[in-house]
């Protein structure tokens, strides 16, 4: 069978200090024109390296392609040198690439027009005039308004989403047959992500381009992919049609991955994480790479499984049969609703919290105005409750967290903790009370002092607040905390970088728990982690809450996660809370147009559900806080905005169920 683009038995190794390590092990795949193929896997699974190696884009050395054929319409590309004219004509000509980070993949010193025409002139041998016409046409296709005048603009004059559109235009400029998109939307917001992916798949279909999409997001896979390759530790462990794989996942890793992500459309049940850690590159074991994390591993798994046909085009590399797993798996998916009943008194209450930065200008550095980051938000959290704070980047989530913690200047309003106002208390007086309100950070790499060992990291609050008397008790307490978060206390002499991301986040959690706080603010605690690890951390946070009656303010941009973990959810947009309600209620009966759009933009990791969903796109992007609209912050992007919306700012209006919405249109409806 001849495929248009086919890679077979590709094997890539990297030279390291400890010998050669295998990054891609005998991977084969193919694509046909007009097809959307997804490569899914966690970081380090080799999905990007596979694509880069096929195009000979890896630096050699340290990388080396040990074996494999890359056939483009029957011709083996491996016979050409990486820098040969043929390869250069194919890269960017026949095969276009789009990278993850739109901020760094465009040349900041060149006008975007030049960057688009360059490719067209090089590969299609077009003249300047023709190439420019093509560029204008492309920019129009990728949805850049007013393309003629924007050709002369530089990348920094565009937003992140717009830049990714320009990247698409560049990739399209040479009329490629294949586009490889490496995590094209990971750096973008959910609503922008939906726009970009929709655009990309549309263009691919229209121009009969084969789209290879590399992603770690199962939702994206379910929404857009026709065929899927699941990668783990440099191997393709399962491949097949998207419907097949989601309906009847075969490989234990795929099964685990699907169960490990929270879903928007289902009721609450406990996530089932994949145990253990993702393999570190370079450390390989004999046989099946997944065996050490696999709950169903048997003796046979010590030999390497081959990728065997199951049915149709569905292949899987596993010694065991999928039916066996069905029997072994417990059917324990009991729904457990998070109720707000039985929760304690109000513990943390925020009233009209505002954060402004002065804008200074001129020679004398005079203050000319205020930049409002947080535009007056109010909410309260009861003891034992989790309030989810969700919104896109730049909406002020993290600023809210830091404002509540009194970490930034220019914060006004009131923050009541345990019945005491804390915002007006001077730092010196407040310091002893800080133990009552702790924080878990987003980045487990930067939030732990790289020079301090884990014992002292976790134990520091104990010392600061004099919570232990003597060395003995200190050691005991630290061990206890480490065990609580599922870490082996014997590792406590190590420093942070000797741990994986998930383990580090556990250290961060242990540190936050050390002083026995009332409230823990979790600032995107899982967004830097791999999918299978996310579920572990979410479960840990939930268990700890149950065990210790903790109260969380959980900040995240991922609605599915927030819905999963929270009792109540507040949706933020541009420094305002636009909607707040019980989490089930919010997802079932979202009222605010922004909440609705946000929910709509999130792909659900199930292709059957995705087929039936309407993909209604929210237009535009989040405006800069410098250009805050006068009235409702969402008015500019809202399809229902009226004159009143543009002039007057709506406030949260609560119904009898405690579901608050800040929208003029909703209020009118309620009034009727």
């Amino acid at each position, binding site marked *: 069978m001849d495929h248009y683009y086919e890679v077979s038995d590709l094997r890539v190794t990297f030279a390291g200090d400890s010998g050669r390590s295998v990054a891609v092990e005998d991977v084969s795949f193919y694509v046909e024109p007009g097809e959307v193929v997804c490569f899914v896997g966690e970081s380090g699974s080799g999905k990007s390296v596979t694509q880069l190696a096929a195009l000979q884009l890896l630096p050699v050395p340290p990388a080396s392609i040990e074996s494999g054929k890359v056939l483009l319409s029957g011709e083996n590309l491996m016979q050409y040198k990486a820098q040969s004219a043929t390869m250069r004509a194919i890269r960017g000509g026949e095969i276009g690439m789009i990278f993850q980070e739109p901020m760094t993949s465009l040349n900041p010193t060149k006008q975007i027009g030049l960057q688009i025409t360059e490719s067209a002139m090089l590969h299609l041998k077009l003249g300047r005039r023709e190439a420019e016409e093509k560029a204008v046409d492309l920019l129009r296709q990728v949805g850049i308004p007013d393309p003629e005048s924007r050709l002369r603009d530089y990348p920094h004059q565009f937003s992140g989403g717009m830049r990714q559109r320009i990247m698409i235009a560049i990739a399209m400029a040479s009329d490629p047959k294949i586009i490889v998109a490496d995590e094209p939307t990971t750096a973008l917001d959910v609503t922008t992500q939906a726009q970009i992916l929709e655009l990309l798949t549309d263009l691919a279909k229209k121009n009969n381009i084969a789209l290879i999409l590399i992603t770690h997001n199962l939702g994206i896979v379910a929404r857009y992919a026709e065929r899927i390759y699941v990668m783990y530790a440099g191997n393709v462990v399962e491949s097949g049609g998207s419907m097949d794989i989601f309906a009847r996942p075969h490989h234990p890793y795929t099964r685990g991955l699907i169960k490990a992500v929270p879903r928007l459309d289902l009721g609450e049940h406990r996530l089932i994480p994949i145990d253990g850690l993702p393999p570190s590159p370079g450390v390989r074991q004999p046989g099946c790479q997944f065996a050490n994390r696999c709950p169903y591993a048997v003796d046979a798994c010590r030999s390497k499984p081959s990728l065997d046909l199951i049915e149709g085009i569905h292949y899987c590399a596993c010694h065991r049969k999928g039916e066996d797993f069905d029997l072994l798996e417990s059917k324990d998916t009991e729904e457990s609703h998070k109720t707000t009943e039985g929760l304690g008194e109000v513990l943390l209450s925020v009233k009209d919290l505002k954060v402004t930065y002065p804008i200074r200008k001129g020679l004398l550095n005079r203050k000319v105005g205020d930049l409002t980051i947080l535009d007056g938000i109010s909410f309260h959290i009861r003891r034992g409750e989790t309030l989810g704070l969700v919104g896109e980047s730049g909406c002020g989530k993290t600023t809210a967290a830091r404002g509540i913690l009194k970490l930034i200047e220019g914060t006004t309003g009131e923050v009541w903790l345990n019945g005491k106002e804390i915002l007006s208390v001077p730092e010196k007086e407040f310091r*002893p009370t800080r*133990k009552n309100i702790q924080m878990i950070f*987003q980045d487990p790499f930067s939030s732990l*002092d790289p*020079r301090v060992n884990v014992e002292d990291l976790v134990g*520091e609050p104990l010392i600061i607040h004099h919570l232990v008397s003597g060395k003995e008790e200190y050691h005991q307490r630290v061990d206890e905390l480490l065990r609580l978060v599922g870490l082996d206390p014997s590792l406590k002499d190590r420093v942070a970088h000797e741990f994986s991301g998930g383990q580090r986040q556990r250290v961060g959690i242990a540190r936050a728990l050390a002083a026995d706080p009332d409230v823990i603010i979790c600032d995107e605690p899982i967004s830097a982690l791999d999918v299978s690890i996310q579920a572990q951390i979410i479960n840990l946070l939930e268990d700890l809450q149950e065990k210790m009656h903790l109260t969380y303010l959980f900040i995240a941009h991922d609605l599915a996660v927030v819905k999963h973990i929270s009792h109540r959810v507040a949706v933020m947009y541009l420094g305002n809370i636009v909607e707040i309600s019980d989490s089930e209620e919010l997802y079932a009966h979202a009222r605010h147009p922004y909440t609705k759009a946000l929910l709509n933009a999130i792909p659900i990791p199930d292709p059957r559900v995705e087929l039936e969903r309407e993909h209604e796109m929210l237009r535009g992007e989040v405006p800069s806080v410098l250009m805050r609209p006068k009235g409702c912050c969402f008015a500019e992007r809202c399809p229902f905005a009226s004159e009143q919306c543009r002039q007057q700012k709506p406030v949260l209006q609560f119904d009898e169920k405690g579901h608050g919405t800040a929208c003029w249109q909703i209020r009118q409806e309620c009034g009727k």
Partner: protein
Amino acid sequence: MKNETNSKVKKFVKKLFKRKIVIFAAFLVVFFVITAIFAPLLTPYDPYKGDFRAVLAKPGRAHWLGTDETGRDVLTRIFYGARTSLMIGVVSVMISACIGVLLGLISAYYGGIINLVISRFVDVMMSLPSLMIALALGMVIGRGTFSLMVILGISTIPTYTRMMAGQVLSIKNRDYVIAEKVMGATNGRILLKHILPNCFSPILVLLTSNIGMTILAESSLSFLGMGITPPTASWGAMVSQGSAKLLINPVYGIAPGICVCLLVYGFNVLGDGLRDVLDPRLRGSL
């Protein structure tokens, strides 16, 4: 437990000497330290008593590197000169590092008016060549080993302050420093326990290489006649006096110069090697 520390030391040494050149540098430094400490045992001569029968003798069996104009053995003087150089180098670097690092820490961490005052003071110091400052201070304080240490110490403060301030600025908004604030740690604790250790690698590199620089500065000052008061042995003074006698005994002027070069080089490379080992982000990256 003891095994563990042993293996840690082993690891440290292994990392440090991974590059062969560092071994050489360490050897140089250790060599000069040993000669400085054991100077009286290594040579039969007195560094201050001349032998008038052998003035400006050429290198020979009795005097391996010859003698100077008062008949003192050059090799002996070099051994004793290593004492002066190392002592001045280490002590003055300690003085400037302590003051400079402290100023840098405080100015960058607290910011505001404190930062303004300290930075401007540093700017003024920076705008004057440090050798000029040293010369001027020398006029005021006077000559002698102790005042030379103070002079050289003060004149290199700005480098440390600048460097430290830069480091602190890049670190003070890191998440782990914010985490400390959230924990309720006092500013003093944050500064000393978290910011200072994390700024330390580049400071240590600067420190070791500055020992070399200071030894060089001491030599320059002594060469100019503003440094060590005779008859104390000093490499710089020896180069100065030897340069006038180059034609009679070239080794007399050149040998101490080579010593200065070797010692300075040794400290520089050792500093580099230390940085490679001490950065924990590089640890375990093998």
